């Protein structure tokens, strides 16, 4: 399996419900970032959580990080139809030689919020 895998692959919910997406990864990391992508469009940065942080909030977003389990979750509360998009986690792998400078993306999770 790949570094940065989102689970589930697709999620369909009703407006107002919460959406939880999970991401697992394999190597040690400096940070983990979540991005959103509307169909065929650019990547929008949502939130960055560093390896020494356990939880972070930004508006309706809550991200958790469990480095012992090498996993992260993104919670979107009170979802809206406009939240419909693909969501990616991306890890910044740690190496003894210093930062690897690249992000390793998961395959993405397609969220559909029905009005």
């Amino acid at each position, binding site marked *: 399996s*790949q570094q940065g895998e989102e689970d589930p692959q697709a999620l369909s919910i009703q407006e107002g419900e919460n959406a939880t997406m999970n991401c697992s990864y394999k190597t040690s990391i*400096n*940070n983990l*970032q979540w*991005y959103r992508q509307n169909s*065929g*469009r*650019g*990547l*929008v*940065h949502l939130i*960055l959580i*560093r390896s020494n942080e356990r939880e972070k909030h930004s508006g309706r977003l809550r991200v958790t990080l469990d480095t012992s389990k090498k996993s992260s979750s993104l919670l979107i509360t009170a979802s809206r139809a406009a939240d419909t998009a693909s969501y*990616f986690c*991306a890890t*910044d792998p740690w190496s003894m030689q*210093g*930062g*690897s*400078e*690249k*992000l*390793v*993306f*998961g*395959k*993405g999770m397609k969220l559909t919020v029905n009005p």
Partner: protein
Amino acid sequence: EPEVTQTPSHQVTQMGQEVILRCVPISNHLYFYWYRQILGQKVEFLVSFYNNEISEKSEIFDDQFSVERPDGSNFTLKIRSTKLEDSAMYFCASSFSETGRDTFGSGTRLTVV
């Protein structure tokens, strides 16, 4: 909020032709990247650039590809002799530090016919 700007947004080119994809990173950023996303697939790292040289590249980034920062603002990706399989969305990104937030541009959709 500062943005990474990419041009063009769409490019169609014939197989075998050379293309140059352009990016203007955020002005005070020091690290620059190119990624690509083949339709329906994951975003893949191509190359990182720091201090006027390539600092890391993936297996995808072969001799067909090159990057350049010709002046203080632009960052370009050149693909020589394009192949059909080069069709993808190409994203430029920049960051201020190695482990900081990476800001992505809106991408250039390259179609090789």
